[in-house]
């Protein structure tokens, strides 16, 4: 197990490195073939009063007229030695820019995840034990509803209601506790939908199993049945879903940050995209690739530890079998 494990981990790490490198190059090519860059855009603004000759002179002095492969090579060799370069838009080191905004995004994303998990758990619990006439059906509709309302709408409604009408938080101080909480709610609601959906499906499946019927027959309380017996087997696939939603947390934080006026990774990306600030975009895309790959790696590696039924099969196994395959088909690994 341990050797297979290490082998597996090493392979996944190499794959991860390739993915990150490809993301870096891909971003470069896509942004480079689009016309414009932050420096030329500023020079072209008629308010600045530069003549075409001056513009050409500055562009040449900055090396912006070099062929794309040459520019890519310069950027890539810096990246491989850990130098993220200078932002073309702000003239400041990319690493500094990211370090400035990352903490705010991490706080928002983790708070958003906590909100999403709590909401999902409450909804899922409700669907199992709320009597039908008290709105179980309605509760089951919540995930679809959450998923279909864009989070900027939720954000604007929250700001208007709690910020302006009730005055619970000052809209222009987005890093205060309450403002962060409401931003986390706006971010967490759509994400909770997917988690709740998977959790409900699994709870439905598990509560139909014989062991659940036996537990009920023995007079176990609802809460106890839920927490002790049903939640653990139902939540394994949820881990995969959570890993996938990390991407959505990053993407969703872009919109949530804009709506709530928070300065984070999302708003940095937004400003960099609108001005085509290539070095920043490359760094952020690479960072997102790193996070994505790592989180999924952790989820996969955590599976065998959480569920003894899941093992790596044979020395040549590429990935662990997932929990929802059940006992009988342990012999073959299926791609989830």
């Amino acid at each position: 197990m341990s050797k297979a494990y290490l082998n597996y981990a090493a392979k996944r790490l190499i794959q991860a490195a390739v993915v990150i490198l490809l993301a870096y190059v891909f971003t470069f090519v896509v942004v480079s073939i689009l016309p414009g860059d932050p420096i030329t855009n500023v020079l072209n603004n008629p308010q600045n009063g530069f003549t075409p000759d001056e513009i050409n002179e500055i562009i040449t002095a900055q090396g912006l007229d070099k062929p794309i492969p040459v520019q890519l090579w310069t950027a890539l060799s810096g990246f491989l030695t850990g130098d993220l370069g200078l932002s073309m838009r702000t003239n400041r080191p990319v690493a500094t820019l990211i370090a400035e905004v990352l903490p705010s995004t991490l706080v928002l994303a983790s708070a958003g995840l906590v909100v999403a998990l709590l909401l999902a758990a409450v909804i899922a619990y409700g669907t199992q034990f709320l009597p039908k006439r008290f709105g179980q059906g309605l509760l089951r509709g919540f995930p679809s509803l959450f998923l279909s309302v864009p989070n900027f709408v939720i954000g604007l409604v929250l700001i208007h209601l709690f910020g302006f009408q009730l005055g619970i938080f000052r809209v222009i101080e987005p890093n205060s506790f309450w403002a962060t909480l409401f931003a986390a709610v706006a971010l967490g609601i759509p994400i909770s939908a997917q988690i709740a959906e998977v959790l409900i499906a699994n709870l439905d499946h598990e509560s139909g199993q014989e062991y659940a019927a036996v537990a009920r027959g023995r007079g176990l309380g609802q809460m106890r049945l839920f927490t002790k017996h049903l939640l653990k087997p139902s939540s394994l696939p949820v881990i995969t879903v959570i890993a996938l939603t990390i991407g959505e947390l990053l993407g969703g934080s872009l919109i949530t940050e804009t709506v709530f006026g928070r300065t984070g990774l999302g708003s940095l990306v937004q400003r960099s995209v609108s001005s085509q600030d290539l070095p920043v975009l490359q760094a952020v895309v690479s960072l997102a690739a790193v996070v994505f790959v790592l989180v999924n790696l952790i989820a996969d590696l955590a599976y065998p530890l959480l569920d003894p039924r899941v093992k790596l099969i044979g020395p040549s196994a590429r990935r662990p079998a997932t929990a929802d395959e059940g006992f009988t088909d342990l012999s073959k690994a299926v791609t989830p």
Partner: protein
Amino acid sequence: MTDRPRFPSVSRRRLLIASSALATAALLATAGLSPALSADSPNNGGDITFLIDSLGDTWIPNNSAISSFQGHIWGHVTDKLLYVDAEGEVTPWIAERWEQNDNATEFTLHLKNGVTFSDGTPLDASAVVANLDIWYAGRKAEGINPIGLFPKTYDRAEAVDAATVKVFFKKPTLGFIPTLGYHGSILISPKTIAAPANQQADLSKTSGSGPYVVESWKEGDYVKLVKRKDYNWGPAAVGHTGPAFLDSITYKLVSEPSVRVSSVLSGQADVAYNASPQELESLKEEGFTVATPRYLGFVNGWAINTKLPPYDDVKVRQALQAGINRQEIIDTVYTPDWKLATSFIQSNVPGATDQSGLLAYNPDKAAKLLDEAGWVKGADGIRTKDGKPLLLTLHSNPYLATSKSVDELIAQQLGKIGWKVSIRAYDVVTFGQKVKYGSLAVPAYEVTRSFIDAGTVASILTNANNGENWFALDESDKALNELRDKIAGAGSAETRKPLLDELQKYVLEQGYFIPRTQIVQRIYAQSPKLKGEVYNGVAYASYYTATKSE
């Protein structure tokens, strides 16, 4: 703000105005400002929050000073050699007085004594020379751009003694003095100027000599300014020279316009920048202060490409000039805070003359001109000539939020006369790439552009001295080029005045420039508790003189 042009010639009327203005100023100063100066006055102190839609990009002083957003911060952190007020009047600031030779190629600036930058460096002649040099040349390879509007005829500057600077130009440059009051010409500590670009980009490392210093800032988030207690060299024109009254000013980025306005309405902030014109009336009704200062510059309008048929025909251009109902633009898209264009330059620019007669709405005249030019109205209402329809393609200016609404209204107006107008709206990047003066697909380039001295206008319009050749005339219009050369060579404002009048009349008569409205690019919605701010010649609000009541 008056619409009356101001000339330095002394008339009785002018003397009367000047003396009554002085008396009023003295009265205001004694009545309004002296209580504020006493230490325990309730007016001294206070903190304000200014909500802004962007904080621009780089903070390298040369590259950012003329940004519509960062200019607000520079206006408080730095000083300028001269002050230019909303009427374009040039008065002393760091330069106490100045002289020029007869043909405006040599200038001598006499500096105020005892001025220091916030890093302790004295603001003396050598500091001014360092600033003039970097404004003119920048450090291009490093990414420090020149100031685009600084006279390109600059030769060199010399420090005669600690308080005297001599500046030399290769050609007569009457525009030099007003340029010193322009938003690009901010005085920065020589230590900052010597620093590499990526250090200049860190705002907290930049030192100016202004009434405020940067306490803290975060890219894309906020800039907090605190007052400098030893500041004592404000421009006399604003009626106050000592330290600022407000303790701090925080510029906070809020990108959503409705959130900016709501925050001011609910008392969470003091000023909202760039509210939409539609919101202004209701803000006023609720007792909020609304300011729509105009900058010194061109009005919002089109530079016509005379190379592109049918706009090579003067009659078609004149029909365009007469076919636009400018009053309807103000009534429909804007509010009465916007002013009718009276020339192709804003009416507050010194030297601007009233050419309203040439800009009157006269659809019958337009129709007649088109008939004469051979454009015949078809069954569908569109005029044609030799089987070709009368087309006008407009590219809405992405730097002006209301541009597309104005285009749509004009499309209706011109449609009645027989034009077929199509509107294209590009984002800033695409616009910069595709829409250029005189290019094949652009019959009309929409101008929003400030300048500080009307003397530079003539060269911009033509191709002389790296001019921008706005109407694609090259060397073909002798009358225009003659005016340009005479204006460029004028050694004094008096000799230049009638030439400028002639230029404005000629350009409008020929239909080279089609004005739409006078431009307001900066809109301020402000809490009634905050009072006493001053708007300068480029429409930036300065809170140096402002006070806040609780």
